[in-house]
């Protein structure tokens, strides 16, 4: 993932995502400068955007958050920067951001 992203060049907007350790929920690195482990939001709209190699610094923050048992499985996601916030480019990450696209048996 990282190498593929780097091949896109310095202009590619990126965000960092992970799952929260305690409940597994999808979270997005929102404020890398706020504390060593960053701040993690359940809303992709809150995700901090990194350009190209700047994501390495974000991943360093994510590594600390993993070491602090806050999150698990952090990785970089390509996004488009839109007025509404970062929009993941790949369908997989769009579903991670938005949740299941379906009504469940309980909700139907």
């Amino acid at each position: 993932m990282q190498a593929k992203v780097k091949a896109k060049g310095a202009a590619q907007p990126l965000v960092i995502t992970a799952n929260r350790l305690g409940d597994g929920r999808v979270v997005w690195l929102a404020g890398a400068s706020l504390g060593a482990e960053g701040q993690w939001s359940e809303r992709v709209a809150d995700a901090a955007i990194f350009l190209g190699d700047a994501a390495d610094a974000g991943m360093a923050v994510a590594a600390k958050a993993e070491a602090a048992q806050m999150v698990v499985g952090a990785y970089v996601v390509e996004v488009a920067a839109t007025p509404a916030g970062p929009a993941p480019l790949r369908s997989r990450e769009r579903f991670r951001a938005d949740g299941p696209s379906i009504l469940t048996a309980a909700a139907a």
Partner: protein
Amino acid sequence: MDIADSFAELAIPQQSTRAGIYHYDAYDRAFLQERIAEFRGQVERRLAGALTEDEFKPLRLMNGLYLQLHAYMLRCAVPYGILSSQQMRQFAHVARTYDRGYGHFTTRQNLQFNWIKLVEAPDALAALAEADLHAIQTSGNCIRNVTTDEYAGAAADESVDPRVYAEILRQWSTLHPEFSFLPRKFKIAITGAAVDRAAIQVHDIGLAVKRDAEGRIGFEVWVGGGLGRVPVIGNKIRDWLGEDDFLAYMEAVLRVYNALGGRENIHKARIKILLRDVGPAKFTEMVEREFSWIPKEKFRIDPEVIAAIRAHFDPPPFAVLPNAAATLAQQVAANAAFAAWVEHNTHPHKQPGYVSAVISLKPIGGVPGDASADQMDAVADLADRYSFDEVRVSHIQNLVLPHVRQDELFEVWQALATLDLATPNIGTVTDIIACPGLDYCSLANARAIPVAQNLSERFRSLERQYDIGQLFLNISGCINACGHHHVAHIGILGVDKKGEEFYQITLGGSATNDAAIGDIVGAALSYDKVVDAVETIIQTYLGLRTSAAEKFIDAYRRVGMAPFKDALYAVA
């Protein structure tokens, strides 16, 4: 007092003595409690940082806990797809207490909860254990939950009840020290009926238990079948294996695989790859050689033990009844909806006056295999009242009330109808198998559930479904093929193309006695083209079939791929 005795004093409710399930004893329950305590400690150490994720992941997987796209998923074992009503109620309780009020029945006859929290997972497992349920060996490179015919012990076409041997396999394989770290996961299916409803030819080991002319019990042994990245029909390596040698032969197959199966490449580690590489003849020779020097007496099960296990599956106290043909005929004649349900959602029973009733978990537009907690409770109530406290899970992702009196079938149907569980579509184009796909699964490339929902809506007309006739349509969200797309008459496989969902269509697969792997029609289609593509395929079939009696699969085998491909990819 040993630990089993101490746990025997726990106030754990007893399972129904009527349901044909394996009833735990104090030893089984003590084992489960020990296992949960062990996992609780592992979770605490993970949350405290004493275990890294790399250290913890194999431990949670051994307890059925996966980390998926949105949350942890707990895959609960339903040994060979059989539940007591009490166990079904406990699933409902766990769904409400630890999840979001529903669960998903899988093609391995298990149940998955999609929204479990790691911090609550030990409590969820403890709740499951109250009903003798667990999540052991629902993940990892071990022998997974053994699957069987959903009508086992009930089907009119059954010669030997496979549940006895499924249970023997369960006891033999549970925490088997030699087979807990195999090269890759290992799946066994067993059937005892003339019609294979357990897909034995596409399992690592497939077993057909049968009787010889003298009435002795033996097994036909298939090895090396499988789906996933390399779909392949298994090879029959024994036409007859005597009951005495059953476990010794299973040991021999597993030992050969454990010793020689690939461990360097996860995609080349299943037994089917070993079989392909060495060839069926050589593989069989190696198994027979291993079998020849295994001390048979060590693996021979005492007949008294087999009898004791068989006693768990004794027939429930059936009433002595005539077949209720006249009553049913009157009810069918008076109610077309009931008639359709009887025709499609029941299966002949070996006991006169009884029938097996299939509860469709495929309502039009619904999520295949999903059931709400309220539905689980209601099914449990129906099982209590009408089916000797027993429920089955089918690998087609439906439920079955195995033993229903024919003269009570109308009442069962009426009750199911009020629960939206009486869709009369078993075996039709809307009885779709679908894996969780990209809506939940971290491995998926594309969604499966909404594709199934859209197809279900397109073909919602029962008249049309019945005109199309028997048609198995399965959808997988990735090449791991949990949705069994390879063995569907029409299979749909989700793939990723530059970050977007595409779907490859296969035709001509089969999971039963005439097992076959489907052929790829052509280039993958985008999400919004799939429903129309299936429509085109079905219209092509309707146009070329010799009569309404010619099923889709038979027509495909007669004419081949060309007309379907031409119709699907014709340039205007």
